[in-house]
Each structure stands twice: as structure tokens, then as C-alpha cells.
């Protein structure tokens, strides 16, 4: 299993749109993906479960991936968490 510490980059925090992008991205990989935040461990492939992660801008999380493409998965998912802008952002 590989893990990576990440910090939420979007000014609005880990809101619904990045959660959707995160879940879609995570589901592209074979590896199991988990997100640890404030003592919770959440299935990163489930949008439903990610809804429980109310991480604000600057919050720290740990991403974990377990599987053949774990490294690629973490790289892609770290970008989703750490970006400060999403397609469709107006300001």
C-alpha cells in the first residue's frame, strides 16, 4: 500500500464538485483507494462516502492506494485534492 499526505487546495474546500471528480478519477484505477481525514477512513471510490469528508481549504488528508496502479492513482488523486481551480469555476 502507498500513501500520500495532501492538502486541500481549492478555496471552497473539498466540496461536491471535487468529490465527484475524485470519485470518477479513483474509479479509473484498479487499486483500492482510501481517504483518511479527521479520524475517518473513507472509500475514495464512493461519492456517497466522500460526502462525509467536509474538509475545508488547507485541511490535511492522507490518500492511500493499494493495487497494481497505486502510484499512478495517488498522483492523479493528489492533483484533484490540491488543485485550486476546477473546470467551471467562475472566479
Amino acid at each position, binding site marked *: 500500500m502507498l500513501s500520500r499526505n495532501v492538502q486541500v487546495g481549492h478555496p471552497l474546500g473539498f466540496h*461536491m464538485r471535487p468529490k465527484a471528480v475524485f470519485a470518477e478519477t479513483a474509479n479509473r484505477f484498479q487499486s483500492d483507494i482510501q481517504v483518511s481525514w479527521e479520524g475517518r477512513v473513507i472509500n475514495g471510490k464512493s461519492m*456517497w462516502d466522500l460526502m*462525509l469528508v*467536509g474538509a*475545508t481549504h488547507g485541511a490535511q488528508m492522507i490518500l492511500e492506494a493499494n493495487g497494481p496502479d497505486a502510484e499512478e492513482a495517488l498522483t492523479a488523486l493528489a492533483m484533484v485534492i490540491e488543485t485550486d481551480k476546477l473546470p467551471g469555476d467562475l472566479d
Partner: protein
Amino acid sequence: MRLVDFVVKDSLVPDLRAETKEEAVRILVNSLVDAGRVQGPEFENIVRAILKRETLGTTGIGGGVAIPHARHTSVERLIGTIGIVPSGLGFDSKDGKPVHVIVLIISPHDRPGDHLRALENVSSALRREEFVSQLKKCTTRDQLEQLLDNAPGS
């Protein structure tokens, strides 16, 4: 930002009938106007903002639930309402199923933390099958209000 902290009880819609996502959003925002929590002249702008948000990705997160939302300058604090759709409504949900519970949220631009906490609490509440099942059985505003007041963690 628990449900009871922001849901406007006078705007609850226990028997929402709509053919489209847009219609449902209009009914719910209008309900907030009627309850005096949204200014009438802002109605169209708010509806448009919520529908625009839907084009970026559906808020139908599955499990028969949708959480349409937008930020808008006209609200000073986060407000919301709940619509129960007895016959179900297509919401382009992630699991392909119709929604029966719509929690609509309007938040001010400068309080992203409140917005996140509201989403977290709404999701947490709606994960409880029994709570959702009870919500779906409500046919009057009083019943909905009582359920919200007594819901664990609400």
C-alpha cells in the same frame, strides 16, 4: 450546520410534484420566497445558479437523494429546504435511480466552511435508511418538521 440549523421549516414541501429537475428547483426556491427567506426579485437568479451548478455535475448522489445547491450574494446565511417527491423524479443521478428526497441549499459566498458542514450533515443524515424512509412517508409539513426536530444528530 445541522439540518435543523438551516432548514427553513416554513418552506418544507412534503408533496412535491414535478416533471423535471428545473420544475422541482423552481418549486423549492419559490417555497423559500414564500417563507420570506429569499427575496422575490432574486428568484430567477438563484434558480439559474442552481441549474447551472447541475450542468457541472449532477447533485443526484444516488440513494434516491439529491442536494441541488448554489452560492448567492443575496443570502446572508446558509438556508435550505427539503422536498419529498412521492412519485420520484429523474435527476440524472449517479445510480440512475429517481430521487424522492431533495435537499436544496443556498449559501452565502463568503462562508465555504458552513457549506461544507451542511453537506456533511445532510449526507450523514440521509445515509440512515430509516430516516430517509420516514422522510418519504411524510405527507404534511408538520410531520416533516417533527421528524427533523427528532432526528438523531439533526
